[in-house]
């Protein structure tokens, strides 16, 4: 009798000890995907990032140490105020543990402030600005997929080395455009190139002919497009119309997503060089993952933001399991400690730095000629792999106060 009771007591203690080991508030893990579901960025990010986050949860088995994981989502409409109020509601009232995706720098910065205050995790994928790992950095904030520095380094370096010494910029007249132009100018000058001028166009803008003629008149070899989305598409389409590319000048798209190329068509986009953090048709691993994603997305193929969201969410789940708690600081420590590797083939040689930058290999890609494209969405030739440390801003230059000088 006594023996039985003893065994029972031991068993009970062991059980409660196991429970005490893993502490997750409300016995649930909730990840909020906050993205643009209806506006300009809803193709390159949008619904596809929710699908990607759900795939990450499925691939992880749906549970962290027996605690179920749930994905919720909302549309921030690319507005900072909407983004921050949703994040506040999620954290304070709905028990959300981390916010993922966050396309549009303004929205990402607004949510970063909220997350930082509450010690919660943010996993930024779609936003571009390096501010997120400099002045706005956070111990529990991560910038996963790409940034303006990596884009500028990748594309401008390659273009200048190929002989494109003189540059003229068409720049979207808001923070992102200015940032991207400044980063690119730095790289061009460092490589011995020359800036012939720049024109700031209203955002958004549909007719670029006037700006293209100014760029043409400048005589610069390279016209750098420091803009994104529909602006970039319109500029490229009209550059072809005005014979810019036939006249010997080349375009450098500084932020181009595969969804933009799909919209332009290969006939118009062929030959253009760009930097990307992911290409679905790069190897067997990326193809396998992308085809699974594609099956849920009507045959489209993922952009780097989609794959980046998957990669960041599944890494977060691994860190949760390792930390055995959902405490932001402890999970963030684990995120930095454990190796980054997942089924999407996204984070090659990935590592997270003190400033929250997830540094990984980037790719210099060139758009294929229509004749060379073998399948739908078969758009890029990968010219070169850019090692993460060469692509991203060196940690020594980071203005983040978490970086020990």
């Amino acid at each position, binding site marked *: 009798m006594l023996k039985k009771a003893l065994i029972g007591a031991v068993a009970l203690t062991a059980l409660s000890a196991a429970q005490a080991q893993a502490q997750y508030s409300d016995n649930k893990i909730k990840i909020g995907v906050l993205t643009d579901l*209806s506006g300009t960025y809803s193709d390159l990010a949008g619904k596809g990032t929710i699908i990607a986050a759900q795939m990450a949860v499925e691939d992880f088995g749906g549970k962290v140490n027996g605690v179920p994981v749930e994905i919720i989502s909302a549309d921030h409409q690319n507005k900072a105020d909407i983004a921050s109020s949703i994040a506040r509601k999620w954290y304070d009232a709905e028990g959300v543990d981390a916010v993922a995706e966050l396309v549009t720098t303004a929205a990402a910065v607004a949510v970063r402030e909220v997350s930082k205050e509450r010690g919660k995790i943010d996993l930024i994928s779609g936003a571009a600005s390096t501010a997120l790992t400099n002045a706005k950095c956070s111990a529990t904030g991560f910038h996963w997929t790409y940034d303006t520095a990596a884009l500028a380094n990748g594309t401008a370096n390659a273009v200048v080395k190929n002989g494109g010494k003189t540059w003229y910029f068409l720049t979207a007249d808001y923070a992102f455009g200015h940032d991207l132009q400044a980063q690119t100018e730095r790289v061009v000058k460092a490589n011995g190139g020359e800036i012939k001028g720049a024109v700031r166009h209203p955002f958004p803008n549909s007719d670029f002919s006037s700006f293209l003629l100014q760029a043409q008149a400048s005589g610069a070899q390279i016209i750098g497009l420091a803009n994104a989305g529909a602006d970039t598409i319109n500029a490229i389409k009209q550059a072809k119309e005005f014979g810019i590319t036939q006249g010997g000048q080349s375009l450098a798209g500084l932020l181009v997503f595969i969804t933009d190329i799909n919209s332009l068509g290969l006939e118009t986009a062929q030959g253009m060089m760009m930097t990307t953090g992911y290409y679905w048709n790069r190897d067997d691993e990326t193809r396998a993952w992308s085809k699974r994603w594609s099956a849920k997305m009507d045959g489209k193929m993922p952009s780097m933001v989609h794959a980046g969201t998957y990669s960041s969410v599944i890494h977060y789940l691994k860190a949760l399991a390792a930390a055995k708690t959902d405490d932001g600081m402890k999970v963030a420590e684990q995120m930095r400690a454990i190796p980054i590797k997942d089924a999407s083939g996204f984070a090659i040689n990935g590592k997270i730095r003190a400033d929250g930058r997830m540094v990984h290999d980037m790719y210099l890609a060139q758009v294929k000629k229509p004749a060379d494209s073998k399948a739908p969405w078969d758009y890029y030739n990968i010219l070169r792999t850019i090692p993460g440390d060469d692509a991203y801003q060196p940690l020594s230059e980071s203005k983040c106060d978490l970086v020990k000088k």
Partner: protein
Amino acid sequence: MMTLFGIPAGALFGQLLLGLINGAFYAMLSLGLALIFGLLNIINFSHGAQYMMGAFVAWLGLTYLGTNYWVALALAPLIVAAFGILLERTMLSRLYKLDHLYGLLLTFGLALIIEGFFRQLYGISGMPYAVPKELAGGWNLGFMYLPIYRAWVVIASLILCLGTWVLIEKTKLGAYLRAATENPALVQAFGINVPVMITLTYGFGVALAAFAGVLAAPIYSVNPLMGSNLIIVVFAVVVIGGMGSIMGSIVTGFMLGLLEGLTKVVYPEAAGTVIFMVMVIVLLIKPAGLFGKGA
């Protein structure tokens, strides 16, 4: 090199010519709006969505049926006009006796629904549409390279605008239409079917928007929001020209295109706002618009 206002003359001419091309789009779209407002008293906020539908019908035809640009130019306005007529018969016709605001809200709501529908089906990034082979290439004018397609846009737009003006102001049909706006009961008493005439007018206004949409497809990204980006500017053009004035909207459309072109050279950052500044000034000095018939 010769300079004007401190700008090389060549660059200036080039920019003015481009301004004229953009003006052609403003003119075509504001013409349709002015026509609908003048004769139906409806502020047609779904005009931008109907312009977008024109471009999408062209793209759908090319992609699924292989119909070329010229067929699209003829058929897309008819298809979109038929859709417009359906809207007019089932919904808009109930609002003619109410305040303008009701028509505005209804058409605005419709625009959001139409755009949402296309966004759901085709995403936001847009679809490729190539310049037709016959109009590919361009001429080197010495001071600029003029794509043949852009020249075609200006010519097509001028013909369309002037044709419409003649139809409304100089023909018997136009006279009936204008009379029907003044006093529908009396015109009806003369044996003219006023409701049918009004419906066809709305259809025609919508067809103009769709025609502009097809013209725009090879130049701009064919995406669900292409109309909503343009429609606000076009409304400003209509307000400046004088609500309901046909010639006013045509002239103002081209004029503001030129002004915008000039701004893009002198101070590009203001190119997005210059038209609205003109609108404010015109509203303060001449509230009925430059060509309006008194408030």
